[in-house]
């Protein structure tokens, strides 16, 4: 079943349809939250659960059933932003978790640390755009809808984020 069909059923009160929708999108949402919040899985999952509860209670406000994914990410993003503001943490904290990961094959530990620092230096909005468009392959238009940002702003954030990250990895952004 498509997201639109499941969302329509969920809005009509079907718990099973809502559960299937969440199962479908939980990985992308949790990955996005982890990259945006900069903490470990515990914090990202906590915010993800809060976002899902909010979505469950607000299903009647979902106007376009075909855009459930963007709507859910939008709720998660607002929760993440509130969490970032409330904690008033420094940029270094925001991506310190990247340093805890093992570097994948082909990436040196120094490059991993450099990337972590570059991510930490991005503002939350830019980091969110990078997380959706560069990491998860969202289109600029979808990201703009989810993050409630103008399309031009998303494009500019992605370009700026890409340039900073490529520079950290020793390359240049020729795009």
């Amino acid at each position, binding site marked *: 079943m498509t997201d639109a069909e499941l969302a329509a059923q969920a809005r009509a009160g079907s718990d099973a349809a809502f559960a299937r929708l969440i199962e479908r999108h939980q990985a992308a949402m949790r990955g996005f939250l982890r990259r945006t919040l900069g903490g470990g899985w515990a914090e990202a999952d906590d915010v993800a659960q809060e976002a899902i509860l909010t979505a469950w209670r607000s299903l009647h406000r979902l106007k376009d059933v075909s855009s459930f994914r963007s709507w859910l990410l939008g709720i998660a993003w607002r929760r993440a932003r509130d969490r970032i503001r409330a904690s008033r943490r420094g940029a270094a904290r925001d991506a310190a978790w990247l340093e805890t990961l093992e570097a994948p094959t082909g*990436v040196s530990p120094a490059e991993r640390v450099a*990337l972590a620092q570059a991510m930490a230096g991005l503002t939350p909005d830019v980091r969110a755009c990078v997380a959706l468009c560069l990491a998860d392959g969202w289109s600029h238009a979808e990201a703009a809808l989810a993050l409630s940002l103008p399309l031009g702003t998303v494009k500019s954030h992605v370009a700026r984020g890409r340039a900073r990250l490529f520079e950290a990895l020793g390359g240049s952004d020729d795009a």
Partner: protein
Amino acid sequence: MTPEQKLAAIFAQQAAPARDLVFMTVVAQRIARRRAVLSVLAGLPWALVAAVVLWALQPVLQRVWTGGGALEPVLGLLGLSAFALAAAFGAVRRLTPG
């Protein structure tokens, strides 16, 4: 590896598992808990209405009840029953698969 490939590799490492039963179970528990609280809260106005109605009917019920003894425990039981019925009705409606 190009910087783009390195970035893709690092981002891929940060992905959450496509299926995570533990996470989904925790989510289901939180929704069930929230729903239970909302169901009880939804029944409270009905319990209040039932109590007010019973209080208003007390003179009538007192005349009907000739068995003597205090009427209050009966009214209390009726009020509790009304609340339980309202809560159960609301819960059944909300938990019925759509």
